[in-house]
């Protein structure tokens, strides 16, 4: 499995973190613009998904796939949104995104008094812990898949 990149948006739709691990194409726009584009897309997409859904179930996660990559979305009940791009071989990363929220975001952003809500997460410790979780998930899957 390959994880390309990860966007984290706060409940107001502001891009508060971006990380990449294996992104091959250099983006043609700034991080902010790209963030707005991604956020706009997932919100619209979710709106459509809910409207056309044949089931009366609201889910806080979905993914779509192209022939080359997969975009995964998971939202915490508090409205923090995680968007992760992976390759097509990747299993469902919903649980991974959830554990990034519970073990990294809550522990090193929410409980860090220096991190202010709505501001970009400027913490090396957070980045480091996030990297550990991502890497752990990769080695785990490469052994089992």
């Amino acid at each position: 499995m390959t994880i390309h990149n990860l966007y984290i948006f706060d409940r107001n739709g502001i891009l508060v973190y971006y990380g990449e691990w294996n992104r091959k194409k250099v983006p043609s726009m700034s991080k902010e613009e790209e963030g707005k584009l991604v956020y706009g897309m997932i919100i619209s997409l979710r709106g459509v998904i809910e409207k056309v859904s044949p089931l009366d179930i609201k889910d806080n996660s979905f993914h779509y796939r192209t022939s080359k990559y997969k975009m995964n979305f998971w939202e915490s009940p508090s409205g923090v949104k995680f968007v992760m791009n992976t390759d097509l071989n990747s299993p469902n990363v919903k649980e991974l995104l959830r554990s990034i929220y519970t073990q990294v975001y809550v522990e090193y952003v929410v409980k860090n008094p220096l991190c202010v809500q709505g501001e970009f997460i400027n913490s090396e410790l957070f980045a480091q812990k996030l990297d550990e979780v991502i890497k752990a998930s990769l080695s785990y899957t490469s052994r089992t898949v």
Partner: protein
Amino acid sequence: MVKQVRQISGVSCTVQLSKRILSDRIVAGTVRIHGPNFFWLKRRSQLDNARKMSRQTARIADPKKVNSELFTLTYGALVSQLVRDYESVDDVNKHLERIGYNIGIRLIEDFLARTNFPRCHDMRDAADKIQQAFKLYLGLSPGISNWSNGNEEFSLTFESTPFAEFVELPDSCSNLKYGNILPGVVRGACEMVQMEVQSWIIQDTLKGDNITELRIRFIKKLEDAIPAGED
């Protein structure tokens, strides 16, 4: 010394005089009453035993209780600091609520991460979860009561004001809402799960009421932020 004091009579001067005697002691040093031999013998043996017992160290009885006491004392020190810092008690009340709000918006994330609860679907559900949160973080079990007709307003009731079990308000602080951090926490936490609520204290054991009652009213559901450039 005994005789000296006993010679003085009359109630009005006695207390003051005695106080002076007691505090003079610091200056005067100690006065030995017993015979010196008895005293030294006893002291020596005590010292000897104290050496033997030196490995026996102090122990703190209940670490879990220490958590809540530590919070209670720190909060108390903060409130009395704010009372000194701000001229108006109303300002102190506002600051306490604000501190609570800031704590609430962080606390709720931990609560959601821990419990894996989804968003609340109505106020009944919210009341139940707020009650669970009190149990989890503070070891308190507030009651839920006084629902309004439309189920949009309810009360949390406490036997006494949380964090205030040792507090006796001075007369100068009769308008102080000592526990005002709580409505702030509730407001902050609810806002993070898309519920705008109003919360305030309507009964307070510190003010002589039988219970402490926190009122919570649903205002509106908050919607997700719409991306720029869309309807």
